[in-house]
């Protein structure tokens, strides 16, 4: 087709001189932000007298709850950066749990984790076959994979776990035998010292110690692996030729093809990695609870997808979003209504700060919206003592909605996402 679709940028002359494109935060700003966040958290902790907010165990628990979600999200990131929507993360995660349980109980947790990775990758490859080779709609294929993965693992569980040795070792058609422990990791020396500091309940200092303690004490090796994978993803996708090509497939595969990039190959690779990461997320569930259990993923693949979008298709953002999920979830599981109640104050303060910032920058409407939300939350905090159990359960979801509603418009989606791409078919 011969349409000329060269639409120029809008009045480019008016743009401020951009350097390196978008504004990125430098290290000092990031540190400042982190410190500010900590200060706020400490203040809320002190004001509401909710020690749980910054207790090291709370942070450790949050980490464990965040990792499977984060890994699924990271898997989603790989897929979507290559232009393929991956709603099948849940299914790949299920495959991960199954494989991890199957190999794990016989050959130990590390072999199990590896098997989970492979199982997830297989799911990713099926998705690649459907979407890339056969050009099936991405969401359609993803949904099909979720159904298929669930059915297949349920079917196979009976054969693999409810028979022979496995049965004797405690397996059933719903669960695997016990998987051995993968031992945890503590930074020597540091954790004791931080623990002492935390005990002191000094404003800010103890809070920081608590958070650091949670991050360094008794951390599962798979959590370290997950953290490394986030960093690695950043380097591979944004700092290597491979990553550049992969991302170009998600932004404009026709352009990539025109420069000799084998788009199909990169999409296949991206989806294999995507599935592998989701599978590792599943394997984490298994190694952490030492057992494969049917239905264990409990929708974490979908939440992972949400945290990836929440995280603006970036590893750092995804990690933060998953962390937020883990944090609120851990808070409600461990602290219950009172802890979530304290969170209201935190959210109110954050929203108020955002409203002021927005107002200063001239975004009156957003400022008003955020301001009103802040006042409402504040009022809610002041007039209640605790949060009903049902509301507590909904906290992570409501928080996500609120945060997204305030920030969504700044998100940046890979341009070609979800679109069909056929070699030589597009002009």
């Amino acid at each position, binding site marked *: 087709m011969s*349409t000329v679709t060269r639409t120029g*940028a*809008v009045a480019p002359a008016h743009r401020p001189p951009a350097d390196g494109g978008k504004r990125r935060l430098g290290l000092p700003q990031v540190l400042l932000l982190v410190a500010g966040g900590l200060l706020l958290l400490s203040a809320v902790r002190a004001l509401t007298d909710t020690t749980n907010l910054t207790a090291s165990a709370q942070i450790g628990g949050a980490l464990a709850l965040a990792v499977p979600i984060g890994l699924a999200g990271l898997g989603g990131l790989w897929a979507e950066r290559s232009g393929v929507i991956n709603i099948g993360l849940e299914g790949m995660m299920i495959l991960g749990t199954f494989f991890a349980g199957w190999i794990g109980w016989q050959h130990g947790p590390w072999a199990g984790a590896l098997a989970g990775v492979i199982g997830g990758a297989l799911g990713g490859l099926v998705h690649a076959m459907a979407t890339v080779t056969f050009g099936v709609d991405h969401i359609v294929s993803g949904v099909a994979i979720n159904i298929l993965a669930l059915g297949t693992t349920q079917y196979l569980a009976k054969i693999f776990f409810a028979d022979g040795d496995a049965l004797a070792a405690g397996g059933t058609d719903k669960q695997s035998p016990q998987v051995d422990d993968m031992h945890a990791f503590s930074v020597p020396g540091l954790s004791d010292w931080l623990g002492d500091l935390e005990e002191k309940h000094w404003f800010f200092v103890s809070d920081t110690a608590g958070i650091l303690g949670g991050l360094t004490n008794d951390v599962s090796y798979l959590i370290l692996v997950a953290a490394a994978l986030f960093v690695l993803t950043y380097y591979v996708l944004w700092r290597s030729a491979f990553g550049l090509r992969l991302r170009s497939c998600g932004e404009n595969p026709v352009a990539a093809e025109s*420069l*000799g990039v*084998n788009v199909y190959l990169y999409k296949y690779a991206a989806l294999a990695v995507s599935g592998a990461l989701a599978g590792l997320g599943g394997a984490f569930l298994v190694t952490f609870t030492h057992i494969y259990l049917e239905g264990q993923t409990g929708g974490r693949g979908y939440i992972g997808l949400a945290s990836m979008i929440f995280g603006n298709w970036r590893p750092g953002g995804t990690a933060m979003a998953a962390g937020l999920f883990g944090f609120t979830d851990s808070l409600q599981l461990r602290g219950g209504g009172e802890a979530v109640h304290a969170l209201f104050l935190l959210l109110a303060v954050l929203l108020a700060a955002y409203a002021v910032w927005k107002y200063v920058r001239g975004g009156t409407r957003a400022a008003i919206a955020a301001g009103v939300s802040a006042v409402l939350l504040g009022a809610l905090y002041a007039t209640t003592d605790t949060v009903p159990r049902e509301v507590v359960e909904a906290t992570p979801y409501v928080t996500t909605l609120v945060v997204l509603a305030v920030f969504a418009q700044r998100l940046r989606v890979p341009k070609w996402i979800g679109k069909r791409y056929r070699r030589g078919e597009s002009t």
Partner: protein
Amino acid sequence: MCAITAPSSSSTAADPPAGAAAVELHGITKRFPGVVANHDIDITVRRGTVHALVGENGAGKSTLMKILYGMQKPDEGTITLDGTQVAFASPADAIARGIGMVHQHFMLADNLTVLENTVLGSEKLHGIGDGARARIRELSEAYGLGIRPDVLVEDLGVADRQRVEILKVLYRGARTLILDEPTAVLVPQEVDALFDNLRGLKAEGLTVLFISHKLGEVLAVADDITVIRRGTTVASVKPADVTSKQLAELMVGSELPTPETRESTVTDIPMLRVGDLHLTAVDADGVPREVLDRISFTIHKGEVLGIAGVEGNGQSELVEAIMGLRDPDDGSIVLDGADISHAATRKRREGGIGYIPEDRQRHGLLLEAPLWENRILGHTTERPNSRGLLIDAAAARKDTRRIVEEYDVRTPGIDVTAASLSGGNQQKLIVGREMSHQPKLLIAAHPTRGVDVGAQADIWEQIREARREGLAVLLISADLDELIGLSDTLRVMYRGRLVADADPAAITPEELGSAMTGAASGHLEDDTAAPDAAVRKPAAPDTSGDADGGQGGGRTR
């Protein structure tokens, strides 16, 4: 502008065996669903020449070039480079053989930087970091491209994007360049600069294959010309031997049309009055910017108002504000006495606005829907498309057949999807659709962009005829000949403002082009005797050296 200098690292490739042609295409045939895009093509391109391909829309030029570039596989035929027959499995093979292509559509990823777009696929050459950055700077300097490697492509204007495309080819050290309609979106000064570039490249022994619908350009720059009609080569000529009129006749077998307006039909009944229109938009960083700044004009019945301007100076936003796709902050839009400043788009269309959008695939068509459904698009509430709240499919289909017939839309039927038509034919369908509802005002944004000469003439004739019957037209075009030829009044838009006006009968494309860069304002006169302060600079602004000032102005710097 951008005078060419020899690149610092020239002639890297080994010299080809003397005598052999750079490129030989023989017996190429390529079929697509429902269409034979190429059939028995034979072309020979001599090394170190600029070889032009001309032909109607859908003649198969782009397809042929994609075959040469390895993006399409021919069904039949052979490709010979420097005497050796080759078979390309992918563009990577073609790139390895020193072929580079600038596509008809930009092949750029908006969300990646210039550097990333450039090194993509050839990361082995200089890496993806500082090495590549240095090489890009070097090339940019050598060819006067004025490229900043770390800007997001998203933030670039069209001309800059065009230069990035050329840079991509040069970066790979291409010896044979394919340029598919590179001038379609450039103003004359930019075209000149590009041609200077081409001559420079040619002097270095590079071979250039060049596609354009602007026959004047072709005659000016080409050494050889091949004419393609309906998928096959029908003639090979030298520019010296033909006039553009003859060339056009070879392409279409009809006479060369010109977009000249004859007798004036302008009345003094205002049809569209735009007053003090003001529009701000918030950019990605949340900073509000003025995109339309106090725009005022009136179009009368029977008048064509042409707006000239480099793309990205607010023309699109103006059109969108009039169509109701953007809500102006201030000012009024009055159509035939009715204030429509904040009316819904559908109300405006029902009120008699016809719209030929600048991006027909995104704004004018449902690509996956059949032609007859596309005929309904935009006029859902009007006859013959609907009766009451229901769609009248039978009537719409019948009327689609009429449009296909009357506007010479080349299609196997009205049940094929719009995507299967060539761009020119898509455009004819849109024009037919919009004209079928007797609009009071037609907004025509680049109505003939990428359309072949034959279809161009038809579209111009349609506009002229409707104008005779009292149609008011707002014309926006990058084709200055078209703009001058069709308009009764001309205004120049620059940075969101109407900065100058001109009499189309008394202005040349060059003068207009220079005003578009912001170099002149007020009333433009052909004569040097400017009435007042509206100074018109003699030519394009300073073109040498300083890449900053000389990039056709109005661009991001």
